[in-house]
């Protein structure tokens, strides 16, 4: 299908790998300024953290299925001190660190860091980011974050234990929780460094997308991936300063006794009375002012990439390009005024709850519009069920579930009952795992040939998809049912309560699904690593796609393009009557003969 000759390795540019000095190796692959290397660095780091996060999750699931039983294999690997049994202290650190790793070290950096870096310059026809040094720093600021979080695992009880939301006073008072000693301080430092990294990245993305588009590439000819990355960068730029400030406030509360989040005279666990004058709920406002927009930081890029994959394999233009752009923007805008829906029962003024309820209901609207447009896109296409397409389709199917469960929780009276139960856990795993993580898998399969010049194995990919899809629904769909019973989250042993005692078998079923799900990822790891070295070599455009990155060599050399891309149209012109192929690259000039040009019947 490829239009251009196969170029397995960037033929132009400099250095082959032979005879490369140490200094040059370090400049090319370690402290690289090249957005593609930085993107891959993010990709490899986050995939490793994905493994860590997954194992931590198995720890949680083990305890919920077999409370106080020795955990085989992983138990000894993770916490040999306890001889494989999960203590209640360690359970709090398991769920805290699982969520922290998955959110701050996997999902956010894999979307913006790995795919944002790799794809933005390529998809807009630029040779690199606007600020390559800033870009390099954004990766290297992840390392202090890795260091701090890594260190936090070293002090008993081996990780912070205040939840990923880190609510004071538990997270502030030194002796309030076992994990409130050094691990909590290191947690704060780690998360702050991730924030700095994202901040550096987002400034760069905005500038690059505004300034460095190829000639002819207007804003409304941008792929939706780029639109999503652009809006995400804006979200990060506006929301992150608040989290950073809040993080520092919590840090000074812990270390200098400032008391932003502690009421006067508070004594926890025989601590000295707090000087106080603060408000625990203030933290929740600041935290969610960042973290609600952050949930869209964690899904908008996925939505963008899914749109590109679906249009490509439906071989049809995206349905409603502009409504898609508007709904991304709408989600982002509304995303700033819904944070209070995490606080309906927090003690916040109940009148405020009403306004947050209305804005939260309204944010489901652009989400629905996006789903309808994806359905419109596959309607009347010629659907190719490739591995990336299967993952993208499952994103749509699963996001419907996550979006609909959001409506239950947005309804304040219903949220009274389901808040802090497994219903919430079900909701955010449908949007984050069944949604975003599946989109990430699809995107890896889709852009792998561009990154490495080789294909991943399709059959293994499909087995990987099938098993992951099955097990993830077994694990997470059942959580809705637990939520309906009121089964609370974050309990080391929920079966102490008579109300929930009979839910143990269901939890065991879920745990085995989760074990199957994690085990399935071995297939992915094998396929990924093997394909880097032995995958089938491909040309520039193995999928027959339109956007600019597919016009560059695979993998692109330093400087990306071996010609100056000039853009004539949007990226979704599949099946256009103007050409004989079923795709129509953005750089291909229109037919010289005006009679052959397509005239839209509506204009």
């Amino acid at each position, binding site marked *: 299908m490829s239009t251009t000759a196969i170029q397995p390795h960037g033929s132009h540019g400099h250095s082959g790998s032979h005879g490369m000095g140490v200094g040059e190796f370090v400049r090319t692959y370690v402290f690289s300024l090249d957005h593609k290397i930085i993107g891959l660095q993010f990709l490899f780091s986050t995939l490793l953290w994905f493994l860590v996060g997954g194992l931590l999750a198995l720890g949680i699931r083990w305890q919920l299925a077999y409370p106080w039983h020795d955990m085989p294999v992983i138990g000894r690997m993770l916490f040999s001190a306890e001889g494989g049994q999960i203590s209640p202290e360690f359970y709090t650190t398991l769920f805290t660190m699982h969520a922290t790793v998955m959110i701050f070290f996997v999902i956010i950096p894999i979307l913006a860091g790995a795919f944002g870096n790799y794809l933005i310059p390529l998809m807009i026809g630029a040779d690199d980011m606007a600020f390559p040094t800033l870009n390099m720093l954004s990766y290297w600021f992840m390392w202090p974050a890795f260091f701090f979080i890594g260190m936090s695992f070293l002090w008993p009880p081996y990780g912070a234990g205040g939840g990923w939301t880190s609510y004071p006073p538990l997270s502030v008072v030194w002796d309030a929780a076992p994990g409130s000693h050094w691990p909590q301080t290191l947690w704060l430092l780690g998360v702050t460094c991730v924030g700095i990294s994202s901040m550096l990245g987002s400034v760069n993305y905005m500038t690059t997308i505004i300034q460095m588009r190829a000639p002819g590439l207007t804003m409304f000819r941008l792929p939706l991936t780029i639109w999503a990355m652009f809006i995400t960068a804006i979200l990060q730029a506006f929301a992150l300063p608040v989290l950073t400030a809040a993080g520092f406030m919590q840090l000074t509360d812990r270390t200098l006794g400032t008391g932003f989040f502690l009421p006067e005279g508070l004594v926890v666990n025989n601590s000295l009375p707090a000087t106080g004058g603060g408000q625990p709920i203030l933290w929740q406002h600041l935290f969610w002012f960042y973290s609600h927009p952050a949930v869209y930081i964690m899904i908008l890029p996925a939505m963008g990439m899914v749109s590109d994959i679906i249009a490509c394999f439906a071989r049809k233009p995206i349905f409603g390009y502009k409504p898609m752009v508007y709904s991304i923007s709408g989600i982002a805008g509304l995303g700033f005024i819904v944070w209070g829906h995490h606080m309906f029962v927090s003690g916040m003024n109940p009148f405020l*709850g009403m306004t947050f309820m209305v804005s939260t*209901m309204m944010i489901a609207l652009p989400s629905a519009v996006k789903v309808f447009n994806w359905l419109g896109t596959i309607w009347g296409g*010629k659907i190719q069920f490739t591995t990336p397409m299967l993952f993208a389709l499952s994103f749509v199917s699963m996001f419907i579930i996550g979006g609909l469960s959001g409506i239950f929780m947005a309804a304040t009276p219903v949220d009274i009952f389901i808040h802090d139960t497994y219903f919430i856990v079900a909701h955010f795993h449908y949007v984050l795992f069944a949604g975003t993580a599946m989109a990430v898998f699809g995107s890896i399969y889709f852009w792998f040939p561009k990154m490495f010049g080789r294909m991943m194995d399709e059959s293994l990919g499909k087995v990987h998809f099938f098993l992951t899809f099955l097990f993830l629904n077994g694990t997470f769909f059942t959580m809705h049912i637990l939520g309906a019973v009121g089964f609370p989250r974050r309990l080391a042993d929920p079966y102490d309560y008579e109300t929930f005692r009979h839910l143990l078998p269901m939890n065991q079923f879920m745990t085995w699904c989760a074990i199957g799900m994690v085990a399935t990822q071995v297939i992915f790891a094998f396929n990924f690593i093997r394909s880097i070295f032995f995958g089938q070599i491909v040309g520039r455009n193995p999928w027959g796609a339109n956007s600019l990155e597919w016009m560059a060599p695979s993998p692109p050399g330093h400087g990306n393009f071996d010609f100056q891309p000039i853009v004539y149209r949007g990226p979704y012109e599949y099946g256009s009557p103007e050409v004989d192929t079923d795709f129509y690259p953005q750089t291909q000039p229109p037919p010289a003969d005006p009679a052959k040009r397509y005239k839209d019947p509506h204009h």
Partner: protein
Amino acid sequence: MGRFWSLLFLMVPILGVLCFVWAMAGFWPMQNHWLPENIGGADAHAIDGLFLFILGLTGVIFVATGLVFFWFLWKYDAAVTTEPVKYFHGSHQLEVIWSIIPAAALLFIAIFQMSVWANTKIKRPELSPGVARPALAEITGRQFEWRIRYAGKDGIIGTEDDVFKVNDLHLPINEDVVLLIKSQDVLHSFFLPHLRVKQDVVPGMQQFVWFQAKRPGTYDIVCAELCGWGHYKMRGRFVVQNRAEFDKWLEQAWQEQEVSSFALPAGE
């Protein structure tokens, strides 16, 4: 393979609905895998009603979108379809329709439920117009127990005749009950699953919850907000009994109370 994958996606709405129906019907092995017994008053039942209403509404959308999704995948499978690709970029009309209808539905839900929210969180029961009903007891969450201080015979919290208990809450049946809840150390959440009541308790603040309990029996008090390593064992019980039994129990608890050794500071 397109056939296979389309059918796989068809399983999502089918198994999804089946799973919910199974749980609601309580078939083996999912007995009692649904909303726990509701022993509350009108507000608690309104919450269940809303839950079911939203379940119905979202269920219809879930099934409809799932079927449409399946049908498109099935019909436009490249291996099967003979139709040429429909080359077009969308429809303004459709966009308007599928924006307005969900917007109206969502706004309706939002407005429809406001009165339930107001009843449960804003309009505290009154003895007579303008006179709020006083709290029956003050409940203080602390790591890792619920300390309960009954107003006692005089109906006022903070007086000599207060009765102290830990994790053991007694409530009169069929009456408006108001409880004052607060925290002594970190955040906790006072969760009564069978009454559909939940409220975080926040150090430095005091809050009220109110409800009616309509069925005698013993039920769980759950802590629903992470409060430390012992969060899971912060379990209380509440006993619903008729007024006479309740008064008798309180009187007896007062008699048995060892008051000489400690005097707690008065509640606010």
